[in-house]
């Protein structure tokens, strides 16, 4: 459903130009949860912004459900890392979630119902009338996820979504992501710099190199489900995969047996 071919991007020009993406080819099929992991500053966000249509890449093309991405696509939602700057502080939680739904042609009542449903899915049914700043960081990020869910996108992009919350909340949100993907037939692209997280959450882990980013690894994660923070993380396959991904991220050669 998502086809990225030979995507390149360079910021600026001349001697100060920064080459962020060095030719990315990636295909994601419907319903997949793909984690993109790479070292800090490698161009992960540039990739995400190109897919979201927030940035016009200097080369290559992104095709979403058969249509090349030029503007921000209709059935795409983003969960940003910085929830406090993504949710609107002057609106209640319910309004934050239902505002984008007007575009989907939903009436006032339907919008309110959709917002409520999404809040229930993220376990925040009681927070509809609160303002985002009345909630803790983890809860605000849940609201962001609820907003994306209510929008019912074909593709959900998550940009380091759990980077600004504490470890406990992070685990909760990882499990939440695994849970909600089952509700809708959503394709999810999650960008992270956390190697464990990428293996724990993803069906597939795509590893990027340092800038200019290229794909240096594409691993399928076949862990027995349902995944669980304790058991999954001590499973031999998990341990092997995280080592594998870790080596790739640090730019080491991998053992040939497991590279695919």
């Amino acid at each position: 459903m998502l086809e990225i071919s030979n995507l390149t991007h360079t910021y600026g020009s001349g001697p100060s130009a920064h080459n962020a993406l060095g030719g990315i080819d990636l295909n994601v099929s419907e319903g997949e949860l793909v984690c993109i992991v790479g070292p800090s500053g490698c161009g992960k966000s540039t990739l995400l912004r190109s897919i979201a249509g927030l940035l016009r890449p200097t080369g290559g093309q992104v095709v979403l459900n058969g249509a090349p991405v030029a503007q921000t696509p209709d059935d795409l939602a983003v969960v940003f890392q910085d929830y406090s700057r993504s949710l609107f502080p002057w609106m209640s939680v319910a309004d934050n979630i239902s505002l984008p739904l007007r575009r989907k042609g939903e009436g006032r009542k339907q919008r309110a119902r959709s917002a409520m449903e999404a809040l229930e899915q993220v376990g925040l049914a009681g927070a509809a009338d609160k303002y985002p700043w009345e909630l803790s960081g983890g809860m605000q990020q849940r609201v962001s996820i609820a907003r994306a869910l209510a929008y019912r996108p074909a593709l959900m992009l998550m940009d380091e979504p759990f980077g600004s919350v504490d470890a406990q909340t992070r685990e909760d949100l990882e499990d939440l992501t695994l849970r909600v993907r089952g509700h809708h037939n959503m394709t999810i692209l999650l960008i992270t710099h956390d190697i464990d997280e990428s293996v724990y959450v993803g069906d597939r882990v795509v590893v990027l190199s340092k800038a200019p980013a290229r794909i240096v690894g594409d691993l399928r994660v076949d862990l027995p489900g349902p995944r669980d923070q304790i058991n999954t993380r001590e499973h031999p396959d998990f341990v092997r995969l995280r080592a594998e991904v870790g080596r790739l991220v640090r730019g080491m050669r991998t053992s040939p047996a497991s590279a695919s």
Partner: protein
Amino acid sequence: MKHSAPASPKSSGTSPGGSPSGLRGVARAVSRLWLVPVALVLWEIGTRAADTPYFPSPTTIAVKMREMWLNGPASRLWLSDLALENFPPSLARLFAGWALAGVAGIVLGVMLGRSVLLARFVDPLVHFGRAIPPPMLLPLLIPLMSIGTQMQLTTIVFGVIWPVLLNTVDGARYVDRQHMETARVFGLSWGQRLWRVILPSSTPKIFAGLRLSLSLALILMVISELVGSTNGIGFQLRAAERAFDPPALWGAIVVLGLLGYVLNLAFFAIERRVLSWHRAAKQTT
């Protein structure tokens, strides 16, 4: 919930118990206002000691004010004919001028703030216009429009539009980039972006501008009435000056001071209400 308890700034404003909070309110008012009677007493002593006709004592001024403006029937809140002849027109000018300038300033400000191209062309004009002291317009406007409401309103609007305009430009230009990107990703329409994102995000700045404009509007209202008017507080001030009636002159000054104080207080109350999200959001993040 496993998360840490969310901060709830709403509950912090109320104090527990009925009568202690009432007492505390009185104590707060006293601690804030005690300087006023002290200043009045000092003023009284000073003016009595100086004993010049130019500086009448506060009691003389108060008596004069009562005589001029507060000798009407109780059904009219004791306001005299003279008061009703002069206060409402002044207030009407002040509010009409301020409101016109506010609307125009916000509309133009959003346009200039969101359009780089427009801002590039219009910016020099804005700064040129802002640099002109508004009272300077009066000699130009009098032959142009003749003395009257139109001229007064023009003076006020021209004088008070700048803080609103410049603040709105600033607010609309620097809407958080991620808020705008969120609006783009979720496909908000042009109208939604304006009404639900750009304007609310700019309100703190807009209100700061409106507040400055309000006090400027009071000043310009008086100035426009000094020169070209047949009624209003400024007109009365001028009349008292010509009639060599210092207590009446001082009376008008006191009324203007009180008016400015009350307007600022009222504006502050509205601002607190409209911008409650802003204050709370700033406290918690």
